[in-house]
């Protein structure tokens, strides 16, 4: 069935990158949600905690998305709900429903979970539900279970801390202070295990450090053992608050090693890590030249094929685009709705060098009307980096990259070059792949 939809003013959802003045370049209007679903949500991220059990308390429509997410990654055995009804809003008994509902669920579980993550929703905060009382009572009833207070509060997206940041805070909140092990370091915030070949982890492993990454923990005791680490490292901005909280609560210092694609920044950051731990600076030349060679090899294969990049692929997607343009790749478009402040340098570089490259919104209502056939204009030969870029360009050649895929530094650049070559040479079933919610998640 074809529906006649009149096309809106597309100039309002696309801007030349050189003209971007604001880190949120598009107005807040009605929002579109494109079918690309690879990013992990709050229903996925807690699954990396071994033995964790989620209980959501909310309205049916709010919970449908999370329960079906759990069902899709075969995680229903780690998931329950308490449904709010209209009478609960009027009665003022939200605390009782919460406590008794969670109690009933835990008591009927076949297996005792190591930790339980109850999720409050927006409604609890607007009703001023006594969250502290709820957790005091639950902890008293189940002293053998760790409770992580979690929130599903999408109306609070623009508050001091976003729901995604709060999720990261919650999931590390049951790590307790242990005697410090000066040879143990934690990676904080990644859903996919951070690659051990990354420049930072390679440095640590070469120097005999134990690297603890929740994504690699398979027993709850390993999660608890993270309390002994002498340093927390994070690379995703959403994990910053979590690290701040860990420092305040159990005294673990932290360091930010962003997923940058800038050579000098990588070297500076890895050296910073070495300084923090009192290690010798590594010789970056070899890693740098491996990255250069990988990019040159990829360019030799990919040539002038148009490349489109989205914000899902990397928190520093502007910096990634710059790297590729500097190495001769033909970047023709970027897809994003916001830019992080630490991309300011790359943005300035674009203003001076490639100001006309289009920057397109993915969520503005007009995004529904993109042609989604750009790849067709090039005989299907368009390479996308990120699932949203794949959807909006209509290509079958794409790197299914989400939050950097745990790849860091020069090693990450070499990996990207290889993944681009592979994507160029091999088609993917775009429709099937990008609609998987929480790519890589399992129970």
């Amino acid at each position, binding site marked *: 069935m074809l529906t006649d939809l009149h096309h809106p003013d597309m100039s309002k959802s696309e801007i030349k990158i050189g003209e971007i003045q604001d880190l949120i370049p598009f107005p807040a209007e009605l929002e579109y949600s494109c079918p690309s679903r690879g990013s992990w949500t709050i229903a996925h991220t807690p699954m*990396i905690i071994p033995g964790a059990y989620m209980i959501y308390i909310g309205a*049916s429509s709010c919970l*449908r998305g999370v329960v079906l997410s759990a069902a899709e990654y075969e995680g229903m055995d780690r998931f329950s709900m308490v449904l709010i009804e209209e009478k609960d809003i009027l009665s003022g008994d939200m605390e009782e429903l919460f406590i008794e509902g969670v109690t009933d669920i835990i008591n009927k579980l076949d297996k005792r979970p190591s930790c339980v993550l109850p999720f409050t929703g927006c409604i609890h905060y607007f009703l001023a539900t006594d969250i502290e009382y709820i957790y005091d009572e639950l902890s008293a009833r189940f002293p053998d279970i760790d409770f992580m207070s979690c929130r599903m509060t999408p109306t609070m997206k623009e508050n001091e801390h976003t729901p995604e940041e709060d999720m990261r805070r919650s999931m590390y909140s049951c790590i307790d202070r242990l005697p410090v092990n000066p040879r143990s370091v934690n990676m904080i915030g990644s859903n996919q295990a951070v690659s051990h070949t990354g420049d930072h982890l390679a440095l640590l492993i070469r120097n005999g450090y134990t690297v603890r990454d929740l994504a690699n923990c398979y027993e709850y005791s390993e999660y608890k053992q993270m309390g002994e680490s002498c340093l927390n490292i994070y690379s995703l901005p959403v994990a910053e608050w979590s690290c701040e909280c860990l420092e305040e609560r159990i005294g673990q210092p932290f360091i930010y090693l962003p997923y940058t694609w800038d050579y000098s920044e990588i070297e500076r950051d890895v050296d910073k890590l070495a300084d923090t731990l009192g290690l010798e600076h590594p010789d970056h030349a070899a890693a740098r030249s491996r990255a250069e060679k990988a990019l040159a090899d990829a360019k030799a294969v990919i040539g002038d094929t148009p490349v489109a990049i989205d914000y899902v692929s990397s928190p520093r997607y502007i910096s990634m685009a710059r790297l590729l343009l500097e190495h001769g790749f033909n970047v023709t478009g970027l897809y994003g709705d916001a830019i992080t402040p630490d991309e300011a340098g790359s943005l300035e570089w674009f203003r001076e060098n490639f100001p006309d490259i289009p920057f397109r919104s993915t969520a503005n209502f007009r995004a529904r009307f993109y042609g989604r056939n750009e790849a067709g204009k090039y005989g299907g030969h368009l390479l996308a980096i990120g699932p949203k870029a794949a959807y909006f360009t209509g290509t079958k050649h794409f790197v299914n990259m989400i939050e950097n895929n745990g790849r860091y530094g020069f090693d990450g650049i070499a990996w990207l070059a290889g993944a681009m070559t592979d994507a160029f040479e091999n088609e993917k079933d775009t429709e099937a792949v990008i*609609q998987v919610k929480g790519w890589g998640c399992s129970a």
Partner: protein
Amino acid sequence: MKQVVRVLSTYSADLFGINSVLYELGGLVVMHDASGCNSTYNTHDEPRWYTTDSMIYISGLKENDVILGNDDKLISDICVTAAETHPPFIAVTAALIPLFMSTDMKGLARVIERRTGIPSFGFTTNAMDTYVSGGNMVYGELLKRFCPDERPGRGSNKLSVNLLGVTPLDFSIVGNVEALRSYLEDSGITVNCCMTMGCSLDEIAAAGKADVNLLCSSLAEDGALVLREKYGMPYVTGLPAGKYASGKLADSIRQAVSGPDDCSRSDRDDTSSFSAEHHADGGVWIIGEVVFAASVRECLENDLGLKDVHVICPGERSCGLLHPGDVMTHEEEDIEDCLSQASAVIADPVYRRIMPRGWRSRGVKFADIPHEAYSGRMYRSRMPVFIGAGFTDILQDLLCTQREIGINDIMKNNVPFAQKKKY
């Protein structure tokens, strides 16, 4: 404990039912809720989202707007979008927080209509009722508003029907709608309008050209009642699922033209007798949308000779199809109780999780019939075409072979990062 959902899922919500009905009609449909909440509908409840354009949006409600009651932003955003896209109508639905704020959805729609000149609807949904409730809201309003008071002339001399309540939530996109059309055409009955898969707003406005309405799901009961009141159009409730029903339904449609329709009962059933405390013990249980479930019962009883067949209706409407011993509930506790002595269950595969311990060893049977409004997209490849005489054999096969659906469609395409299970 009531309201606790320990092992099951939830049904598609009222506002998603509205989206689903309106999806193909070219209108501007706005869910008044927080950013991100639209992905539930788009991902799990709307199989057309990837391939068929439709203007289903979310308002992006934020905390400040809640506290300050900033309806102006919603109105203004809708007017901006409407000015650029010229939709034939605008619909706004409410999620939980607007309900909590007592947002006047109908008042909002009036303001929007005044400002844009475009027919606008405000639906006081609550995000807690099922898609059946939302479907009835929208069918009622749509037909009241767009069907002229004066009945249009008949389209042709052939007997014709409107199909009411057809959405992917109950029929998916696996061939049921096509099979329904074929069945009617083969029976010498023309389809005037298939509401709302494969029809236009103009065709809906011309619903009065048909002779009879066929109520295909409980989503459209109010729509059938509106057309009966407006034009005196009779309606027939049911689906040609299986041999017996396929033989009978076309005759029922023909009889409805000349005689009283099958809804001579009161317009609203008294559903109090279908509370869980009155449930039947043992027997075969079907769980699902009531028109579908009643059709499966008809097939089991008449084609396969089974007796003692009962229905659990999780939606808000029974459409006069329930029998003594049947239950209207979506409470997990009630469902568990009903199924505790069942000899066989026909339901979405997720309901396997609520079966009593040891049910397999006791010889209890379970036939998987995935339902998009319940388990969403994840078992779509295993949804049967339940329209037509062939459904009898499909159902018999499901009951005999006891084939279990293994890994779901989405997980088949996923590549887990973790090396082993974490629970």
